[in-house]
């Protein structure tokens, strides 16, 4: 624990970071004491991982200074960080899977001549000593590939010990682990703390933070909100601090007539991704799907659209049971899906805006397989006007447009299919505030015209402002179905954060 008067191991002052002009971390001041386990908490995108990566030399800060043991340091790269005694342990460890554990452990050690013989016996002996320090049983001559993720993390920790790291950063280390493995990890973390090392622990699981950490720092929207001893905050306090931003005023909810059920999902399951998902969306209704990144929301959407079909469960569209194993079928059934990752699954970067807009409606632009340029141009032009897409020419490559306008073009593509059910996965990610507001208007109008909308979003204000109902997923399961009147950020967040549901209510 931090004692008054003890000097910090690491002090960050005014740490800021911008990506492509967008500020993701703003003036963060933080002191890390020797011999403490310090939790970083926050919503997705709050800045906690960015901060950790700056300390570990993965990102360089735009502004701010770092002091390590009283001297100012420039952590220019992960290699420099390693030399300074700072190690970042990744959730899914990056290593050389075909090399042995011992080889991975001595990686980057530069003793011996370039063409000298490899001292295998010494390497294996050193590796065994390091692994034994952790009190785990791993055969150091085995290749990394065969190890469980927990064991791979142990090797990473052993590597941190090999370079005698004073500061070890664990970015969501427990997500892929079983409860027993988590216990082992915690035991080691506590031992390292007792040896006087500092550990930064990033996790979404409050009960883990409570069990392990001494102090916690909460991030929100790139700002540090609070640093407190864990005992002084209740779970409810933490959740409030994590989300407590004001509702943005420009958002509103259009009034639409809610009609009969358009999409009905029952017991949809894809082992390893989501389990027993049941819900329905009515015509004219906007149903939000909230939760943390990795909760399985996108996987449900991909399953519904046939990109990665579910293993079991049933889907009804407009009351008719359907089996969708391919996006083409989904489109024929009146579904549309604006995917989360525009660059990967949305746009054809080098092709014209026009072609991008007309991609899903070949039947409309080419009744007999031969493209009618005039028809295509008219369709695209109309869409550009209606969605206010800003561009220089319909024939310019879509990659030249801004992110918001690319997204509008993708939305235009799907509106041409005249879908009855529209699935939007993080539709406003990476989009300017101004264009976001336009999107909110459009989504409202689409619902008003009788379409059923499933809106996946990690932004709580967005869900609250737009949705008639909010479903929440956590670790592959549906954990809440909250009507608009009762929906609050706290309710959504507590359903989204794994295993704190009872405590936070």
């Amino acid at each position, binding site marked *: 624990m931090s004692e008054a008067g003890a000097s910090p191991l690491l002090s960050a002052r005014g740490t800021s970071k911008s990506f492509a002009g967008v500020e993701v971390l703003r003036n963060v001041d933080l002191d890390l004491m020797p011999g403490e386990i310090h939790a970083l908490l926050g919503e997705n995108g709050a800045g906690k991982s960015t901060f950790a990566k700056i300390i570990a030399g993965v990102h360089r800060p735009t502004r701010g200074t770092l002091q390590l043991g009283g001297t100012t340091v420039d952590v220019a790269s992960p290699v420099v960080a390693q030399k300074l005694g700072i190690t970042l342990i990744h959730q899914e460890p990056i290593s050389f899977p075909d090399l042995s554990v011992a080889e991975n452990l001595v990686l980057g050690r530069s003793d011996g001549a370039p063409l000298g013989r490899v001292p295998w016996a010494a390497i294996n002996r050193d590796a065994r000593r390091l692994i034994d320090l952790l009190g785990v049983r791993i055969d150091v001559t085995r290749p990394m590939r065969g190890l469980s993720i927990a064991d791979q993390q142990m090797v990473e920790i052993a590597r941190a010990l090999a370079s005698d790291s004073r500061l070890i950063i664990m970015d969501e280390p427990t997500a892929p682990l079983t409860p027993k493995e988590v216990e082992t990890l915690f035991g080691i973390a506590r031992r390292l703390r007792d040896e006087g090392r500092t550990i930064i622990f990033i996790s979404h699981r409050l009960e883990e933070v409570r069990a392990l950490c001494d102090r916690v720092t909460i991030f929100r929207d790139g700002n540090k909100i609070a640093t407190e001893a864990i005992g002084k905050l209740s779970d409810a306090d933490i959740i409030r601090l994590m989300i407590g931003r004001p509702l943005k005023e420009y958002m509103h909810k259009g009034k639409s007539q809610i009609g009969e059920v358009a999409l009905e999902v029952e017991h949809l399951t894809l082992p390893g991704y989501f389990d027993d998902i049941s819900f329905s969306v009515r015509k004219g209704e906007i149903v939000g799907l909230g939760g943390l990144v990795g909760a399985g929301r996108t996987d449900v959407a991909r399953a519904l659209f046939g990109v990665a079909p579910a293993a079991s469960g049933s889907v009804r569209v407009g009351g008719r049971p359907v089996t969708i194993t391919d996006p083409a079928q989904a489109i024929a059934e009146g579904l549309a899906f604006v995917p989360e990752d525009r660059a990967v699954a949305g746009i054809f970067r*080098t092709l014209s805006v026009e072609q991008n807009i007309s991609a899903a409606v070949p039947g409309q632009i080419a009744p007999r397989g031969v493209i009618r340029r005039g028809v295509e141009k008219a369709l695209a032009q109309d869409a550009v006007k209606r969605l206010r897409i*800003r561009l220089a*020419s319909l024939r310019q490559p879509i990659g030249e447009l801004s992110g918001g306008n690319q997204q509008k073009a993708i939305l235009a593509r799907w509106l041409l299919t005249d879908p009855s059910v529209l699935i939007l996965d993080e539709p406003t990610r990476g989009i300017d505030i101004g264009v976001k507001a336009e999107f909110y208007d459009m989504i409202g109008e689409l619902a008003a015209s009788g379409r059923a909308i499933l809106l996946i979003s990690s932004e709580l204000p967005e869900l609250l402002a737009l949705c008639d109902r909010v479903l929440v997923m956590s670790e592959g399961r549906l954990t809440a179905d909250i009507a608009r009147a009762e929906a609050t950020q706290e309710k959504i967040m507590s359903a989204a954060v794994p295993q704190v549901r009872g405590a936070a209510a």
Partner: protein
Amino acid sequence: MSASDLQSAPSAQEAAPPRPAWQVLLIRPETMTLALLVLAVFAGAWLSPFFLDISYILRSFTLYAEFAIVALVLTMVIIAGEIDLSPAANMALSACVFAWLQQAGLPVPAAVAVGLAAGLAMGAFNGLMVIGLQLPSIIVTIGTLTLYRGLAQIIAGDKSIRVPEWFIGVDKIMVLGVPLPVVIFIVLALALGFLLSRTIVGRQIYQIGTNEVAARHAGIRSARIKFGLFLAVGLVSATAGMMTASRLGSVRYDLGLGGELQMVLMAMLGGTYIFGGRGTILGTFLAAWLLVLVSTGMIVANVLPAVQLVVLGILLVVSIIATNFIYSRTQR
């Protein structure tokens, strides 16, 4: 002109300005091919007075016509983001199947049909491996290139099999003074050019090659289209095999040996982007003529065969560097 463009745009503040017209023209994949082709004509005419004899060039083209025909279809495969290196071996195997069957007494039309079916089957096998088993097409078709050539050798042995007298001489048939293989090449180029630029299937081939994940999300059945392309290459290769058999009058297992490189050369020289999404039939069409002009031009000018190879190699490297350089410069 750029001023009027800007005015017609609703609001250009968020969008990049449109590319100048000269750039649009320059980054068209076949521009470089056309420039080289013009250059080759002038160089050839300067080297030898016989060079500009059209009928001589047409006759020379018949030597390359079979590869050029397959290269047209191969261009579509490459645009879709795949590759097929087995067509030359396919030509040999289907021609051997045909020659062997007709020698064994099967009527020639039936033997041709079986030969074509064999070509189709070879294309289907490639397609199954690439699409069904999700294997990289370059590995699969290097494998089948060896496999098909090996099977051809088993069937034909080391001897050449003669084909009937009346079947010989497809390259001697003239249509309006143009040898039939050249006519087939031109007609196929027109048809495929139309398919690629004016139809939905053609459009979707580009979209698959540009971003297959996005194509699938847009409901484009990429597996079906790619499989179709492999089938098409198989069928066209077998046809080219028959044409070669007819031109040579006999079939050996080494028919068309090394042809896959000539085909890829034509596609690349025509500005087709090896990673998919870019390329035109026009480019490959021009590149085929360029290749014929340069080769025959050098023969006419008594250039040593070794030097001819060097020139072809330089040509390819220059054209690839040029198109890629211009392309990357204009990408923002």
